């Protein structure tokens, strides 16, 4: 009896092993290695020099560096720009496409396409649109007498240009989530409001929006985590430039690690941003729970 149990155990472990190995090799080991590295000095251009322990020096450098704080600020600025517009646009479009009109199912599917494209491709598409001399965007703007705008080559416009591309790609995410939530709302309160004669705005403001709030917060939460790590689009469009105008956290880490070869500083910056994103998640979860509790009460 005892014998078979331990045998079953061993078989189970054998089956689990591949998954455990993969998880360890791809996630846990790199993370532990990065943590170890963040306390060392390691110059990748001189890989044979021993990795000296430097205590928290890398962390001190990251936290006191103008470039890191600037990258952090740029990341939050970009998040604020993209997420706010995405929520408003996404909810607005969701309200439109959930109307009972012919062809809306097709429209909804078409609107999802940007979300399904790899960010690198999105970056390339917008590179064509933004291209200083040959770009389509400036061509169309010139037709109405505007421009030319130095979309990705001026420090004033570059971050906005990135934001526009990101908004184009991720607004459908909010649209899809909100549309699904809208369709699950019970129709009776709307009929009650129709009989009572409440205005469309009041119905949206006091009936629809409060019921959508938990969904919108969840979507924001998912997008915020992703947006904090934004990399591909920026890498393709501006590589963090011009100057440091679009250098977000992940590009800062990349630059420290693979341009300046300072692996220890890059690793420390990674952990600082991990801590920041964890705080962000906690904050979002709290406010999500609060809004759901408010609905139930």
């Amino acid at each position: 009896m005892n014998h078979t149990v331990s045998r079953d155990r061993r078989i189970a472990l054998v089956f689990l092993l591949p998954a455990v190995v993969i998880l360890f090799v791809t996630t846990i080991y790199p993370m532990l290695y990065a943590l170890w590295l963040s306390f060392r000095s390691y110059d990748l251009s001189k890989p044979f020099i021993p990795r000296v322990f430097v205590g928290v020096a890398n962390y001190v450098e990251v936290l006191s560096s103008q470039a890191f704080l600037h990258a952090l600020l740029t990341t939050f600025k970009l998040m604020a720009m993209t997420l706010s517009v995405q929520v408003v646009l996404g909810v607005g479009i969701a309200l439109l496409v959930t109307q009972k009109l012919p062809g809306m199912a097709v429209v909804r599917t078409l609107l999802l396409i940007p979300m399904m494209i790899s960010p690198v491709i999105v970056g390339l598409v917008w590179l064509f649109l933004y291209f200083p001399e040959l770009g389509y965007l400036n061509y169309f703007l010139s037709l109405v007498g505007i421009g030319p705008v130095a979309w990705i080559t001026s420090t004033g416009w570059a971050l906005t240009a990135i934001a526009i591309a990101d908004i184009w790609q991720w607004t459908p995410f909010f649209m899809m989530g909100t549309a699904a939530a809208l369709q699950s709302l019970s129709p009776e309160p709307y009929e009650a409001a129709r009989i009572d004669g409440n205005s469309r705005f009041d119905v949206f403001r006091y009936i629809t929006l409060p019921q959508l709030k938990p969904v919108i917060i969840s979507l924001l939460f998912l997008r915020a985590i992703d947006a904090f790590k934004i990399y591909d689009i920026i890498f393709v469009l501006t590589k963090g430039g011009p100057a440091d105008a679009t250098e977000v956290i992940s590009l800062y880490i990349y630059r420290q690690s693979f341009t300046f070869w300072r692996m220890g500083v890059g690793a420390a910056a990674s952990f600082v941003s991990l801590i920041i994103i964890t705080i962000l998640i906690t904050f979002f979860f709290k406010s999500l729970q609060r809004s759901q509790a408010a609905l139930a009460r």
Partner: protein
Amino acid sequence: MSSVTLRNVVKRYGQLEVVHGINLEIDEGAFVVLLGPSGCGKTTTLRMVAGLESISDGQLEIASRVVNDVAPKDRQIAMVFQNYALYPHMTVRQNMEFALKPQKLADGEVDRRITEASRILGLEPLLARKPAQLSGGQRQRVAMARAMVRTPKVFLFDEPLSNLDAKLRTQVRLEIAKLHKRLGTTVLYVTHDQIEAMTLADKIVIMKDGHIEQVGSPEEVFASPKNLFVATFIGSPSMNLFQMTVEQAELGLLLTSQPFSVPVPSPLLSKLSPGRQVTLGVRPSDIRIAAKGEPGSFEARVDVVEYLGIEALLNLRIGSQEFIAQVAAAERPVPDQDVSVFFNPAGLHFFDSQSGQAL
């Protein structure tokens, strides 16, 4: 004066016609119940009156005004929904305020109406609660209060009690009756429950498959059903039916089935001729146990006795014909024996077997 009038009102969904030309007049202050089995078009009819569904054909008048193309909010109606349709994130008070918002009343008036409605429906201690914190019965009362504060000309109810348990249903039913008595406002009420209809209605409208089968007071539809459908739908337990044939006997016409026969009553003599198929209907309460050999009685076998306290239901059998009698519990026989039963001659209903219409 008529408060709501339907003239040949039709509802079609594409090719499918679900309400076939309904005519109905609802007097001011009346409590009218649309009664019928599920899917017969009650809700559709009510929603056309509310303006939530368009009217495909015919005319609808509310307070002597044709309102076919009038928006729901301008029809001076208020509706209470089956699942209450309360606004989930608003308190009870806010639910009522929101319903009043379009009327742009002075704050004092809003407060006065909410206070009044809450007092009548006993909602004062609940005003600060949200729907999720209320029981089903309380939610239903909030839904009624929300309809009431708008002081409509007509209240529309769609199966308001169907989500409540049996005990609460009786209680809220009584509250609806009291509310109607107190306010005197016209009510159009939809239900599939004949007891609700009987207890609440001034006038019952019995529907089937998008048609009206009979309109009448509870007494009328119970005592003189126009056809077999109404006869069996109204009353619980439902009316017993016997398939009979008209035969010529020595003393006149007789209705016979295998085990027993009854004489044809004189008003029907001229309508019936030998050979005609007739369905005889007798309510369980019109059957009593008779003394052995009593004239006009016949023998039946007692299969099962269901004791209900004051009364008992007897499941009886004559040959293969089963039927139910409702007798005083004290007089109930024991099962598996033969008893004499007597049909109250005044409680006999005759229907043409072919058309189902009363004779």
